[in-house]
């Protein structure tokens, strides 16, 4: 018997709009926002880089949105139900939704998107391996049947993770050369209008958007300004109103925050929960020794990095999970900054001054400075560190080919350890040539088993137990050296209201935003 529990989230949606405060949203106006770097394209199903997500999140939509606490909210799906055996997910689609070209949106588009994403979207393909079949009993119903229960499944439908694409424009075409890649057609609150390469992307209000009355603003200009200092100036002179996270160098944030009519928020990153760490090569060199890895954890002054390099933004990481994602625990071994202990551990490990290569992340000044700080920390306890400088492709290549000793990185966690944590620690994710999997080469059968169980266990209390256990083991073993839970502040002029309402922040489109004139 399949007892359906209907989870209506309308109440939650009301909560969200209530946060707008007593003020009534005003209609009209233009938002100028910085986009950096310029996205290579706007087809979310095929391109997944940050700027693409930021712009295309206005154009495309997913089945669901997520609250800052990662609870699902309706979007293209207006309601959903999960069977008691946690294997059948039934989505009721919102009626009357049209694509920007006027064609109706139906369950056929969802089925098509599943097929397309399996070919073009590495992360979606990974998530969809859990699915046995997808069916559309009618135009407004889609049913996913899983092979086995998969805890995070309700969390995979965010717009960039699972964008719904127009079947009538892509079906049967060569996806990579489809003309709509650069003039995208979605169901979202804003429609693509113009892209002057190197200058700006112009989006205009979707007058027939399904959430009646929204969006409030008329249009958005995403301005391409390649120099960080010039982006600060553009904000200061009022030419842009929104600096999304990471638009300006960190050392400029305190100064900009103090400007008149400037508002800063760290929220809107809950779904991604970017966690920074050092890859430690577990296969060869001094870092293959667990004691050396533990010594590195004790040697690094992470509070200094947080307070000085990140200007107090973010949080010192306690382990493989960020505190904002599900099943996080801080009940794990602790590694305070303790150079004496680090030296003692190095001595125990028999480290005799072998050269260790350190590769900072080539993402600009902040990361450069962090690389220097960590190098100094490590040298202070007697490690022989040599910095390796490279650009992004070089860094990706070296990490993917396991040609490093210590390397900076930060990755998104996507709200659930099964989606964004396991991939970095389980043996099945060891595959040379790719970044972002288990590139450190850590292999522990017990950890493998626990992560496998955690993904498919029900109910959540069981999952919690498993993930708490695995966090303890990992923190003891130090496969990588966790640094900070990063926070990328979004800086706006205060007249821009209600810009960030969900767990993906600026990436969720500006449907709720309005300008207080």
């Amino acid at each position, binding site marked *: 018997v399949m007892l359906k529990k209907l989870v209506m989230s309308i109440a939650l949606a009301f909560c969200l709009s209530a946060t707008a405060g007593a003020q009534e949203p005003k209609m009209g106006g*233009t938002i*100028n926002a910085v986009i950096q*770097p*310029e996205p*290579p*394209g706007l*087809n979310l199903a095929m*391109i*997944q*880089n*940050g700027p693409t997500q930021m712009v295309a999140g206005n154009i495309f939509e997913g089945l669901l949105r997520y609250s800052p606490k990662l609870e699902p909210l309706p979007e293209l799906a207006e309601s959903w139900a999960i069977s008691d055996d946690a294997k059948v997910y039934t989505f009721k689609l919102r009626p009357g939704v049209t694509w920007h070209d006027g064609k109706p949106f139906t369950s056929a588009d969802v089925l098509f998107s599943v097929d397309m994403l399996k070919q073009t*979207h*590495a*992360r979606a*393909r*990974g998530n969809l391996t859990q699915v046995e079949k997808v069916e559309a009993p009618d135009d407004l119903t889609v049913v996913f049947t899983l092979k086995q229960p998969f805890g995070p499944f309700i969390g995979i439908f965010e717009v960039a993770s699972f964008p719904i694409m127009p079947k009538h424009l892509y079906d049967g075409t060569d996806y*990579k*050369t489809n003309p709509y*890649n*650069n003039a995208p057609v979605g169901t979202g609150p804003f429609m693509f209008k113009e892209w*002057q*390469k*190197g*200058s*700006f992307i*112009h989006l205009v209000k979707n007058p027939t958007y399904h959430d009646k009355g929204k969006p409030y603003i008329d*249009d958005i*200009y995403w*301005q*391409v*300004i*390649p*120099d960080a*200092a*010039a982006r600060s*100036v*553009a904000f*200061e*002179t009022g*030419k842009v109103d929104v600096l999304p996270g990471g638009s300006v160098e960190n050392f400029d944030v305190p100064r900009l925050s103090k400007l008149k009519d400037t508002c800063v928020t760290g929220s809107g990153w809950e779904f991604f929960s970017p966690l920074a760490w050092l890859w430690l090569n577990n296969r060869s060199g001094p870092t293959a020794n667990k004691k050396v890895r533990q010594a590195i954890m004790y040697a690094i002054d992470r509070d200094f990095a947080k307070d000085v390099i990140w200007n107090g933004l973010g949080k010192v990481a306690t382990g493989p999970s960020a505190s904002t994602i599900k099943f996080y625990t801080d009940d794990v071994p602790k590694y305070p900054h303790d150079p004496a202990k680090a030296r003692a551990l190095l001595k125990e490990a028999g480290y005799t001054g072998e050269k260790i290569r350190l590769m900072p992340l080539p993402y600009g000044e902040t990361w450069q400075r962090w690389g220097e700080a960590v190098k100094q920390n490590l040298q202070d306890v007697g490690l022989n560190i040599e910095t390796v400088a*490279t*650009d*992004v*492709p*070089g*860094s*990706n*290549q*070296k990490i*993917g080919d396991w040609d490093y000793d210590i390397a900076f990185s930060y*990755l*998104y966690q996507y709200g659930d350890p099964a989606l964004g944590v396991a*991939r970095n620690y389980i043996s099945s994710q060891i*595959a040379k*040539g*790719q*970044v*972002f*999997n288990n590139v450190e080469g850590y292999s522990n059968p017990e950890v493998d088993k626990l992560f496998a169980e955690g993904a498919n266990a029900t109910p959540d209390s069981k999952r919690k137990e498993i993930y708490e256990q695995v966090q303890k083991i990992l923190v003891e073993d130090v496969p990588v050296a966790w640094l900070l839970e990063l926070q990328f502040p979004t800086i706006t002029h205060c007249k821009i209201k209600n810009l960030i309402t969900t767990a993906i922040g600026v990436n969720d489109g500006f449907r709720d935003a309005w300008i207080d004139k």
Partner: protein
Amino acid sequence: MLSFVAQRIVKCVIVLLAIIVMNFFLIRLAPGDPAAVMAGEAGASDQVFVDQLREKFGLNKPLPEQLLIYVKGVVSFDLGYSFRQQAPVSKLIMERLPATLLLTMTAFAISLVLGIFFGTLAARWAGTWADTAITVVALIFYATPLFWIALIAILLFSVEWDWLPSFGYETVGANYTGFAHMRDVGAHLIMPATTIGLFFMATYTRMTRASMLEVKRLDFIKTARAKGLKDGVIQRRHVLRNALLPVVTLAGLHTGTLIGGAVLTETVFAWPGIGRLMYEALLQRDYNLLLGVFVVCSAMVLIFNLITDLVYRIVDPRIEFAT
């Protein structure tokens, strides 16, 4: 003259082909390929995905075959496809070329006019305080890094005084047309063009000054004076015209470099030109696009060198079109 031009063009084509082949291998020496970059940005990758990308980009074929395909394309004026930006390379370059030409030609004009003007003055007043002042100012602009001048200019003219826009090609969203549009673009052009212009001005000032002083010592100037010609006429017709030859050579070389060499200025002022396109293509290992920009820039250098040779003849009738 025709055969001179024809021969030069044939030489240019050969040089261009050599440049293509060399660039083709050079950029593949850098670690990482476009597939790795894009897989990296996907936030998740598996072998299937990377292999798919490599196949899509034609990166799984042996290098010589890739080169052959590329050269075949270029010969038929097809610069290939940028998989990264999902558009033909020639389209991407043509979108950016006008902005770059506007910027570099304005900068070029500024540098040449000011350079020759101040160089002439300095030569005329050689050894006086005015000469020293001109030389020192020119050297300061030459020695200061471009991006620093650019940032200071932004701080003064945009932030402090709010006279000029700090970034971009035009006021986005203003939708100006006609004269208003020209004025708007002009306002955006002033700072970047002057920044580059002042840098190159220094070279022309120095070159003009030195060259003029040299020519002044020659016998035919004495003759001209002995004939009783006015000083202004001597300076203009006899000294300057002869002194300009090395300046023209230098200007010819500069024009070519200016096309691809405005990366820093374009970046600081968010000017949507070729320099930035090239820099981004390099960081993303967008091989086809990068090669395409190189081909266009090299062609520009060659074309401007050809023009320089022709201008020689006009400036100095003694030079024949010998080959």
